[in-house]
């Protein structure tokens, strides 16, 4: 997904001379072709995220469209005030490409886990927050990214994730994609959890539980319309995210459904990472397993909720 994303930056840069790339202190060879062909529009700025965001703002004020790339934690927490004021207050077209959203950097410990990034980005006015589910969807997102007037936070997975998005569905920021029609249950998932949600839905069908899956690739602006439409008639809406339970997709969906509640508004079950720092190492998959966020765990949480009468 990351490779696709960065390749697309180069493609966009060839297409549009407003595109510039700014990295922090990335691995050797990043976007070498772009660096060679357009050295004036390729920047590697070192371990200085505050400056990178401000510099991107200055370039954007002058008409450029900077694509900024570094590790998600440092792109969100370290320079939060610059993101809030330089980018969001000025409403500038800067794209933040965040490596390793969620538990990708599991072996590196809690300093490198971006488990609250969507929450803190979502709370900023003018910010768009997108978590593509696979490399193909990433490419579709990048193709439309030039035209967003304000800042966009793009959350990257580890890479090599199974491709479950479909070209026929297209891609529009803020428009969720129904991958499986709702039944008793509707799972709303974002990022690489969409794949796991589809697998969980398969498990549940085997148990006689019809379960829809909505790919909510854009967490902000949330697709209230499709969420309301597809939630109507289901008994349980389940949100699944590789993110703290505080303030992310689950919170956004709950806010949306509560704001539009009717007597038929379904029960909401939020699945995510509990409100603690991770105390384990291992792999992304092993941590997801621990948090009950692999497909079996998701399915188990849903059957348990149904068995308990949605209490």
């Amino acid at each position, binding site marked *: 997904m990351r490779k696709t994303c960065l390749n697309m930056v180069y493609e966009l840069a060839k297409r549009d001379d407003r595109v510039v790339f700014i990295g922090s202190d990335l691995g050797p060879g990043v976007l070498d072709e772009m660096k060679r062909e357009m050295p004036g529009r390729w920047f590697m700025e*070192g371990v200085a995220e505050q400056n990178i965001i401000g510099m991107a703002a200055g370039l954007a004020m002058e008409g450029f469209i900077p694509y900024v790339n570094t590790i998600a934690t440092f792109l969100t927490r370290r320079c939060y005030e610059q993101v809030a004021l330089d980018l969001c207050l000025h409403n500038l077209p800067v794209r933040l490409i965040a490596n390793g959203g969620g538990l990708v950097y599991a072996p590196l410990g809690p300093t490198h886990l971006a488990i609250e990034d969507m929450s803190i980005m979502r709370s900023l006015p003018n910010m768009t927050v997108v978590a593509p589910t696979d490399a193909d969807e990433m490419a579709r997102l990048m193709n439309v990214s030039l035209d967003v007037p304000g800042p966009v936070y793009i959350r990257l997975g580890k890479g090599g994730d199974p491709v479950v998005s479909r070209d026929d569905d297209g891609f529009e920021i803020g428009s969720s994609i129904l991958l499986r029609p709702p039944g008793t249950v509707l799972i709303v998932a974002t990022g690489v959890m969409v794949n796991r949600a589809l697998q969980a839905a398969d498990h549940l069908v085997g148990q006689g539980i019809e379960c829809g899956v909505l790919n909510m690739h854009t967490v902000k602006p949330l697709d209230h319309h499709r969420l309301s439409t597809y939630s109507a008639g289901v008994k349980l809406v389940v949100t699944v995210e590789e993110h703290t339970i505080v303030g992310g997709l689950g919170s956004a969906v709950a806010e949306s459904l509560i704001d539009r509640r009717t007597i038929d508004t379904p029960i909401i079950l939020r699945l995510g990472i509990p409100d603690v720092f991770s105390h384990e190492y291992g792999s992304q998959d092993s941590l997801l397993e621990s948090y009950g966020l692999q497909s079996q765990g998701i399915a188990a949480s849903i059957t348990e909720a149904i068995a308990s009468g949605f209490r």
Partner: protein
Amino acid sequence: MGTAEFSESALASLLDDRSRYLRKLIITALEGGGRGHIGSSMSPIDAIRVLYDEILNVRPNDPQWPDRDRFILSKGHGCLALYAVLADLGFFSADELTRFCRKGSFLGGHPEKGKVPGVEASTGALGHGLSIGVGMALAARIRDLNHRVVVMMGDGEINEGSVWEAAMSASKYGLNNLTVMVDYNKIQSYGFTDQVQPLEPLADKWRAFGFEVVEVNGHDLADLRATLKSLPFASDRPSAIICHTIKGKGIPYAENDPAWHHKSHLSDDQIEDLYDCLGGR
């Protein structure tokens, strides 16, 4: 700091009519808003005056003119100085100063781009302006444009680490179209900079970060003029001007007194007294 050339007595020059008049505009806003960073606005106003009167290529009737020079007041709390100069040059009506900080006014306690004609960036949180200026200067270089970027910062502001990140970046690219000005009044909010967070050797710091540095008397119009007209100081690196100033300059009892960093709830008599210090309304 403390060299005889820029000692307190050396900075105690008399203000000319225009410098007093611009300071009275600051008092007008202070009166209208009932508050304001008076000390922080009195120290940089002479430098901002010379910049706008004689150096920056700007058009008051066309604030977004693409070829204009860019000035960022990174110490956004000193905005009354910028507002006074912009209003006087006709970027907007000086009447607006009487509505400073009031509901419905476009002049807030910190300057906002898009609201105030002539303001290039919304500042107020400290340590942001230089990075934005670096981006603007790079943009001009990429497009082979000749306009200049000037960023004014406060001395307390440069406690922020982000300033030095930006300084390294400006130096890396040898941005000779970028100028830093430090309003070195030696007082930050709590007290004297040498007690809160010592900055010396300040000129050497900027030199070490790759800037060509000149120190000036920030209230001496001739010194400011000569210095600013000699920009850029070097063809291969950014320029830095350390403006030695007096916080509260022009109001004798406010000068060098940390209590005058920001003032609110001034009585009518106190306001009149401020005007009197500047020769009356």
